[in-house]
């Protein structure tokens, strides 16, 4: 592709904190959505970090998960830029460890920005690190976010996941219910048929209300525990996956042209691209 075309794409910083390991896959997924992903180290000068249209905190093990996953990364000065950008309405996506950082930094649920209002606890139902595919349902509650516009309300999609501390929890669970009613929990673990409140392994970590992703009130910051970038191509979807994505994957067997097509995770990145190009769409109820 011509360099001049790529130059015109919105710029998205993939912040490379020490210990992350998904930055290159994330950059590749952004580029397939026609976004100019750039891997940027966490300690770059603030003016360089300021110059992006959106920010992604990728998955991995920032600071080796010392103290608590995301706890140390949430304190680094480079996060000031991300916090400011979030308040200014720029999109910020935290994937897995990035989600843990956003929660520890108080950017999600962000009712009082900067205040830590939630935690991501150790998985329940499975002792330790859990790795597998899960099904996530989009629950828009009449509200659009920067990351969900390409999904239909109620759509169920498969996505890979890998973590030990992914259980969204809060001291007062009623508050979490309030956030959900306000549309701040738009992505939830369900059974392959879309049934809510599943047990393990459909809800792989015991998250409140089956939360897989939580946003701030404005919907421009998303903490998402699964890895959409690992489901960015159809070839990454296992053949045994249930539903339309499994059917599509099986039908594409040995068809390289089809296998290289978009996987279920790409809608999230395409939604981000739409948001950056055209702004917020009207909510589709």
């Amino acid at each position, binding site marked *: 592709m011509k360099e001049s075309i790529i130059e015109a794409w919105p710029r998205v910083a993939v912040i490379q904190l020490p210990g992350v390991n998904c930055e290159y896959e994330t950059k590749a997924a952004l580029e397939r959505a026609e976004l100019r992903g750039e891997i940027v180290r966490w300690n770059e000068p603030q003016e360089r970090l300021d110059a992006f249209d959106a920010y992604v905190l990728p998955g991995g093990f920032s600071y080796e998960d*010392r*103290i*608590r996953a995301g706890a140390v990364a*949430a304190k680094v000065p480079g996060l000031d830029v991300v916090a400011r950008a979030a308040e200014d309405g720029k999109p910020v996506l935290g994937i897995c460890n990035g989600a843990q950082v956003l929660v520890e930094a*108080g950017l999600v649920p962000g009712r009082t920005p900067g*205040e830590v209002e*939630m935690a991501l606890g*150790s998985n329940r139902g499975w002792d330790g690190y859990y790795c597998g595919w899960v099904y996530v349902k989009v629950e828009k509650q009449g509200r659009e976010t920067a990351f969900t516009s390409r999904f239909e309300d109620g759509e169920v999609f498969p996505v890979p996941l890998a973590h030990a501390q992914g259980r969204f929890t809060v001291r007062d669970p009623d508050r979490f219910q309030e956030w959900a009613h306000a549309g701040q929990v738009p992505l939830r673990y369900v059974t392959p048929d879309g049934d809510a409140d599943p047990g393990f392994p459909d809800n792989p970590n015991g998250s409140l209300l089956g939360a897989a992703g939580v946003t701030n009130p404005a919907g421009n910051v998303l903490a998402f525990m699964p890895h959409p970038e690992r489901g960015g191509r159809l070839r990454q979807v296992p053949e045994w996956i249930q539903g339309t994505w499994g059917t599509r994957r099986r039908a594409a067997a040995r068809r390289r042209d089809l296998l290289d097509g978009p996987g279920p995770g790409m809608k999230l990145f395409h939604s981000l691209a739409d948001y950056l190009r055209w702004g917020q769409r009207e909510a589709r109820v």
Partner: protein
Amino acid sequence: MTLAVLRRWLKVPDPTALTARDTLQRWLGFADVLRDVERSEVFAFRWEEAVAARGILERLATDTNLLQNPNKHCFEIAVGSEALHPRGNVWVLTHEAGNGADIGSVLERRRLVDGEPPQVARGVLWELTGPTDRGTLSRMAAEIAETRERRAGLLANPHLENVTIFSDAPTAMDMAEAFVWESAEAEELR
């Protein structure tokens, strides 16, 4: 009732403690007051009846790989009113309800103790070295203990963990009483 604690710490410098110290000194404004951070893991045991706890824990620590690894850890045991000997001059215990239940169930399943197995709780003891002035020391520990805002607090997330600050080196009883012992509730949470 018998309360006892086994505390273990690394033989080499603890990288998590060093990271906590650097974070607090460089990014959270404690460079002038906080001199050092060290860390140990504590296992608290509660028996409903009177037992020879020290002997039981010594045997578990040396004959099984459940509580410590002799290649990695040093450990000490305290029973009842016996004091523990952590480093530092103020201490923060962080723990999540239900942590340690897995060890309790291994003790039961593998029949590693005679009679009724103890309840087990597990936490992290942060050993802070700060100023000698008691007031400043207590304020520092309270500010460091819980992360309430992005630029304030670090060691525990209050939505997940409980915190107890000790101004004097804790005894086994002090430490054990700081844990949540409602085992049925903790089991249910898991």
